């Protein structure tokens, strides 16, 4: 089954070190479409990441920094990147070795398809 996000997700999951990518509703934290490797708990990741992204956006707005463009979490065993527009968030789960710069460009480019 394909969705309007299938091509976008396919291009992100191809990056070396990416273990999962999802399009998630920002307000409800539910997965719209995803491409995940075995072992990634997509539902939990989507809910928690959307919540963090929403709060980061509110924090940035409260600090007068304007809109949040790109959000990255760097942990011991991996990375999580998120970028959103129009109530949708692209979430990428990756290994520490992933090329974040390239991933960031790809995610911001993908956001343009969200209108």
């Amino acid at each position: 089954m394909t969705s309007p996000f299938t091509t976008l997700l396919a291009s992100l999951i191809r990056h070396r070190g990416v273990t999962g990518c999802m399009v998630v509703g920002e307000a409800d934290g539910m997965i719209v479409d995803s491409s995940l490797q075995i072992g990634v708990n997509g539902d939990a990741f989507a809910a928690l990441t959307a919540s963090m992204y929403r709060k980061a956006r509110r924090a940035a707005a409260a600090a007068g920094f304007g809109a949040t463009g790109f959000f990255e979490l760097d942990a011991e065993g991996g990375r999580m990147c998120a970028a959103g527009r129009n109530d949708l968030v692209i979430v990428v789960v990756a290994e520490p070795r992933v090329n974040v710069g390239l991933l960031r460009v790809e995610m911001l480019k993908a956001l343009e398809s969200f209108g």
Partner: protein
Amino acid sequence: MKLSVAEHWVEAPLKQFVDEARVELAVLLNPSGQVLGQFGFASSVDVMTACALAAATTASSAELGRQVDGRPFSGLHYAGKVRQIFLGRVPMATGSLILFTVFNDESSLGLVHLFFAELCASVAGIVPPEPPATPALAEDFERELNRNLAVMFGRA
């Protein structure tokens, strides 16, 4: 906001759910509408009303699920403009309970689902002293309901 329980074994799972999911209101009840624990309600009348409506809605949606899908619906979500409602069945070794919760944009449906699943997992293994799923006898129902409300709102 204060969490209060009529049965001590529901306290830890309910507290964890409320703390993690950041909900405004939560009530755990058995299918006959008797309250076992609540968070966020100010009066016993509100709890009683919420329990009666939650039990009735669960019974109706379960039957609707059987008609439509051959098995009862296990969860129900309603999104209002400001607040949202989630109603879910909590399976137990000796029957089931119902969780009724209200949340706003501090939380999300995804978070409520996530921590509801954790609540189900932590309650699943518990065998309460008296099985809560057993419907109360008609002559005992009001007495039991009033006893639970009195315990939670300090009138025992």
